[in-house]
């Protein structure tokens, strides 16, 4: 019997017992749907985490003032003011092989007023390097440069949230004067929207101003100390080099002895990103394992039904053998039935899984990732489950003795 004929025979046999075929398929349908949904949800979640991580900035190091112990009392981190603008400049100039950009940051909260609207937001005093480090494009206008920083110019760049709080939609923003803590400032640029941070904070509720404008005019300090620095390494592989070089440069600049604790700390955000990525990968692997197990369970369902079917159709097998069916014809027939069950169940499960993952993605607000390799792989796995599940029942059928099979009641 050729393949086409045995496929037709299998289809006919399955159609004759629709309910049982459906029940046999159900396991595989659910398994494949589960695989599709979990894998694409897992991948979607991974992509979302990666997206959020990326929004933080690329290859990022944070340099913070350290804790020092005074008379035996340790202050919290960031309590000292021993990072300076000069440190930032030194890092930028001396470590240019590993460091792409350095942004010094000093923050202060400020009430901002435009016309009859006002809003309390966070003001970040920094340099144009901040946009590069945070990988943050402007939606309009332009950034401030070195001269504005040097002259403590009264200019600012607004985050999207601040724009929406102060301005009527559609009204001109660039070139307008707003007051930040009573200091009149000209809006020179608008940041593109960045959305929520990994921690859930609104990253768009911010105003950027030249570092010296914030420190000298808003905070009113003559000190050169820097709240923190964000450093962007030239590449992912340069991050650890940059970390090491910054450490030794700052130790040298701060005249720390070999044994002394550093008076600053460096946080490697790339490592955090890796950790977050790894944890989502672990979850994805877990989901895939669960899906694989359900595929096995689905296969067992098919095996079960096929075994029952072989017993129930013993007489049919005897007839087929009596009229010239060889062992392998019988084997192939039942194997084909199992594979057809698995394949049809797989196809139904696939469409169900796509639907579920699209729905979940819409609800969870993350990208749906339906990769073709996953779909093809899942279908192949379902087919394989069919072959494995069908093999033993088919083998049993093919080894029946025709005389006994014909006598079977």
């Amino acid at each position: 019997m050729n393949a086409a004929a045995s496929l037709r025979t299998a289809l006919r046999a399955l159609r004759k017992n629709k309910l049982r075929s459906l029940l046999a398929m159900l396991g595989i349908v659910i398994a494949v749907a589960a695989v599709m949904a979990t894998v694409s949800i897992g991948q979607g979640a991974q992509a979302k985490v990666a997206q959020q991580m990326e929004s933080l900035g690329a290859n990022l190091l944070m340099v913070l003032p350290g804790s020092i112990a005074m008379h035996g009392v340790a202050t919290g981190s960031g309590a000292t003011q021993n990072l300076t603008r000069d440190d930032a400049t030194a890092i930028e100039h001396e470590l240019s092989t590993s460091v792409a950009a350095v942004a010094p940051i000093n923050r202060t909260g400020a009430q901002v007023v435009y016309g009859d609207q006002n809003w309390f937001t966070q003001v970040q005093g920094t340099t144009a390097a901040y946009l590069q480090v945070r990988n943050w494009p402007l939606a309009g206008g332009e950034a401030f440069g070195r001269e504005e920083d040097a002259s403590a110019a009264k200019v600012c760049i607004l985050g999207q949230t601040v724009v929406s709080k102060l301005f009527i939609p559609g009204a001109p923003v660039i070139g307008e004067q707003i007051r930040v803590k009573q200091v009149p400032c000209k809006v020179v640029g608008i940041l593109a929207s960045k959305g929520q941070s990994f921690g859930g904070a609104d990253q768009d509720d911010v105003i950027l101003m030249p570092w010296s404008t914030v420190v000298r005019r808003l905070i009113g300090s003559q000190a050169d100390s820097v709240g923190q620095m964000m450093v962007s390494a030239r590449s992912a592989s340069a991050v650890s080099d940059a970390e090491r070089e910054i450490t030794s440069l700052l130790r040298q600049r701060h005249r720390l002895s070999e044994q002394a604790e550093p008076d600053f700390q460096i946080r490697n955000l790339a490592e955090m990103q890796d950790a977050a990525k790894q944890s989502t990968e672990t979850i994805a692997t877990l989901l895939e394992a669960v899906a694989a197990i359900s595929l096995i369970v689905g296969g067992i369902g098919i095996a079960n039904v096929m075994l029952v079917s072989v017993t129930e159709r013993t007489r049919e097998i005897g007839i087929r053998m009596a009229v010239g069916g060889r062992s392998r014809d019988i084997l192939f027939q039942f194997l084909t039935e199992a594979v057809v069950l698995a394949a049809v169940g797989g196809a139904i499960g696939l469409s169900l899984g796509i639907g579920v993952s699209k729905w979940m993605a819409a609800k969870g607000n993350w990208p749906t990732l339906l990769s073709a390799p996953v779909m093809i792989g899942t279908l192949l796995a379902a087919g394989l489950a069919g072959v494995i599940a069908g093999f033993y029942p088919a083998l049993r059928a093919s080894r029946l003795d025709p005389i006994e099979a014909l006598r079977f009641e």
Partner: protein
Amino acid sequence: MDRSDSGAAGAPVVEARGLEKIYRMGDVEVHALRGVSLSIDAREFVAVMGASGSGKSTFMNLIGCLDRPTRGSYLLNGRDVGKLSRDQLARVRGEQIGFVFQGFNLLPRTSAVENVELPLLYQGVGGRERRRRAAEALARVGLGDRLEHTSSQLSGGQQQRVAIARALVNRPILLLADEPTGNLDSRTSVEVMGIFQELNEQGLTVVLVTHESDIAEHARRIVTFKDGLLLSDVAISRRRLAREELRAEQTA
């Protein structure tokens, strides 16, 4: 139509020499056949009789190539088939033997024509040719107008005719019928015997197992088994003719 002329010239269709069959049931050996020699020529119509346990069913299974003898040899149409493998025997069954069973043994929920096509399926006959030959075989047993009926839509006699058509469709050299009238009423039994007689007159070799002597008397020769041995082998001088029986019944 028939292949009775395609074998070795002049060789009997069935030639059994000292057939023995021993079944093992646990520790017990059952000697089902104790040495049976029998030869059946082409165009013969033989009835095999005997009580249950006489060995007649074992004999049928052996000459039907459903089983292999423990000892002795069996030549089907001049070819020794006693030592063939399972799959080779399946092939011989598919090409040279037609079976008719007591319980009809049609596939349930399957149309008559599909049932009849079954043997051709395993011989790789193409779809259109298969359908044509199956329809032809059904027409031969008077069911040309019932191709698409399933078993549940057919009477017992009609089902047995479908089974006969299935046995004929591969143009066998030997038709084996195992208690073909066991599930039928007497009138339908005579009708079915009529079909066998007609096929036999057209040249087909028929071997029929039965325990009813009036059914056996439709054959030309009766062999009787007892305790695994051949008890008697007699030719029938005045055999029953189904055609005449049916005519007599009509006039009565």
